[in-house]
């Protein structure tokens, strides 16, 4: 039911972006009301139900692929929360 789709900004007018959907030629309109920052033409947006929810970051995509191909997955650090799994043997706690 909820289909968030990536779409590329073609032009912006009155707080609404006209975007190209995926690889096709179909155009969609997305309100920019829910974005904290304004995108620019060429930016890739995550659009859901008529609204852009995020500006996508291609550098992050490239970084993910680089790490995975280099066998470094998954990266350590900056976790939202981290805890020892109850009942797990203590010596199981070792670094990846």
């Amino acid at each position: 039911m909820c289909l968030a789709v990536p779409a590329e900004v073609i032009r912006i007018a009155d707080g609404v972006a006209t975007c190209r959907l995926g690889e096709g030629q179909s155009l969609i309109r997305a309100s920019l009301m829910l974005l904290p920052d304004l995108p620019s033409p060429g930016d890739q947006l995550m659009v859901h139900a008529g609204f852009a929810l995020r500006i996508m970051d291609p550098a992050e995509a490239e970084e993910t692929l680089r790490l995975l191909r280099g066998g470094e997955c998954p990266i350590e650090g900056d976790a939202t929360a981290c805890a020892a799994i109850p009942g797990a043997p203590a010596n199981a706690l070792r670094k990846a």
Partner: protein
Amino acid sequence: MHQTLLRQFRDPELCHTLLTRLRAELDGELRFMEVCGTHTVAIFQSGLRSLLPPQVVHLSGPGCPVCVTHESEVNAFLDLAGRPGVIVATFGDLMRVPGSRGRNLKSAQAEGARVAVVYSPPDALALARDNPGDTVVFLGVGFETTAPTVAGTVLMAREQGLSNFKVLAFHKLVPPALEVLLSDTEAGIDAFILPGHVSAVIGTEPYGFIASRFGKSATVTGFEPVDILESLLFLAQRRRQGRAEVKNLYRRVVSDTSNPRALEVMNRVFRPCDALWRGLGRIPDSGLEFTDEFEDVDAKRRYGLSIEECPPLPGCKCGEVLRGRLRPDQCPLFKKACTPAKPVGPCMVSTEGSCAAYYKYQVE
């Protein structure tokens, strides 16, 4: 450029490498639940499910807004449809979802109710503009991804002075439902793949409790095979290490912090309230109702709709399926009385429902 980049997340060779690493990492059964219906479909459609090692047990959770819409809420839709001067505007997926007596919006439409299928809440607003003599009521379902879009539309309606646009809001919030699932020991969920686009709005912080209080790991991830395999590898690795962690593996779209603008709009229009979930029952503070400032938009109040808690449909096991206690093909009605052409429960209605996915992809 971007499309070429996205295609690399389907690279068969990289998938193969990740699968090998996943096999090496597994030290027993890993029961993972994906919370989002789009992940369910992605896992089946990409063929990933049949490639996963047998120790990886895949459970489909309550992540489809259609599937979790309670029978009583569907009854309220049906109560509204057919009232004089009302046009119900809805996402198409809700048309066939049965209420407690097996009726749905499609049958209401056949009986003369004015029901319009729209693709977005702003489309419903346009309908209100085109029909000034009627009231257009949009059926608001969906999680933190959809709720801000409905809230944004409510703000647009006010700006444009359209007082004939109302919303019947049954939005639901994901983190409180996860708490219910985690407290249910019968399903034995080891780890979660969290809904990617919900995090585009709320960030990843609200999920911290999964690790800190329940000692389970979870990832926020995208919808391509590489995304899902990376997540499974991460979840298996953390378990082998005896550590629980919530991790954002969808950085190209999601940051750990929320989208403050979307949250601000959502919280101006809605405030948390208790909600009924199909199969999970009443969960405190897991739904959204209108704030006082927007009570004039609330179709519940305007039409005096009462949400009476009614019993589940006889024989339908959607509740057990959504909790991960039962596989769809273990439901006695699966493929017999219940098929996508003649669905008994919502999990067979929605294209993102787990019963529909099991049916379509003929899982053994």
